[in-house]
């Protein structure tokens, strides 16, 4: 079973992929990067493609991520929006980290947005939740809790009519 396949197999691990920081905005549909396999000013672009592109695709499964090699003299990234807009990001002579931080600023979702989305997603994910929109609508459906009086009658000491009647 192929396990450590490729040059840096850590890029294939879930932990590495989950730790990707760049989540593109919803409007961006295509992310294309042009770079060369030679040339010092393409070094950052090559590193970006090698280390960060898997993370990017993992975090943005609906975005088309495409690379063009050895076509243009200088490296650049182009993002295509839903409404026909484009944004050209020059990455000549820039390091991997610089490119990533700039992308997060310009085409990525901010931390606040990501946190809010995480909270919203959590609400749906937590199986212990009950109520509207969850698997169990009432506390009485959860094993170990007081069952619904509509299904099983409550014991006498919990019935109001019984307690009041006995008093008299």
């Amino acid at each position, binding site marked *: 079973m192929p396990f450590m396949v490729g040059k840096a197999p850590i890029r294939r691990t879930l932990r590495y992929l989950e730790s990707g920081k760049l989540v593109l905005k*919803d*409007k961006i549909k295509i992310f294309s990067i042009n770079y060369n396999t030679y040339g010092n*000013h393409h070094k950052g672009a090559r590193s970006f493609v090698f280390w960060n592109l898997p993370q990017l695709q993992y975090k943005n499964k609906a975005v088309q991520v495409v690379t063009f090699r050895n076509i243009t003299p*200088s490296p650049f990234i182009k993002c295509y*929006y839903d409404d026909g*807009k484009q*944004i*050209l*990001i*020059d*990455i*000549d*002579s*820039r390091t991997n980290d610089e490119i990533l931080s*700039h992308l997060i*600023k*310009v*085409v990525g979702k901010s931390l606040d*947005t990501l946190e*809010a*989305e995480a909270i*919203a997603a959590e609400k749906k994910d937590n199986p212990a939740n009950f109520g509207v929109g969850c698997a169990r609508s009432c506390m009485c459906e959860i*094993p*170990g809790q007081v*069952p619904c009086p*509509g*299904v*099983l*009658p*409550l*014991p*006498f*000491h*919990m019935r109001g009519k019984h307690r*009041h*009647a006995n008093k*008299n």
Partner: protein
Amino acid sequence: MLRNLLGKTTIDSLSANGFNISYNPVCVQSVRWRRKPRWIPKAKTKIFRIPNHKPLLPEETHEWLRINNNYKLQMNSVRAFFREEVMNKKKLIAQGQTPADEEAEFERCKSINDEWNQEIANIRDARYARIMKKRCEKLETSLDHLERIKELQMTKIEERVRIQKEKSTTFITRKNIDQAIEHALSNQVDFNFSIDLQGNIYKGDEKPGSVAKKEAN
């Protein structure tokens, strides 16, 4: 009741607390009793039952209602407010921002990106200028080199031409061919000589052509 649940099985504790639950491996919980149907008369033990309601003082009732209504109003309003906030947040996350906001956001990002692109363009232009300069210098040196080679070649050629010019005085042409033949015939070169190691030449007594005459005789 719930304190009993610690350390005991759920079904045991529920049975102990008055719930009629049997220990069935297949847990089928169906509705045991919903409500007495309208057409069934009241139970015999319950026909003459008079519920003893506590006498309620009107002022107390009024006060209780007032407090209760106030509390319920406040709680419901707070709940409604939170509900709306959550809905609005959800909407924001789902739809994104309004079109105007989105445009503004795009412009902002674009301006940041343009600054970044400009910086990189400056770096790139500087690099190209350096490369251009190097290329020009290299070309100049190679041109100089080529010129020097050409000069050398020219001098060599001229030398060869000069030597040939000097030699051309002794060349045999159509004009002096008759003279040359007569000269060669009259001054035959005698190769019949011996030479010792010191370089002294010993010429023979016989004239050239005389050996052939002797053999004929």
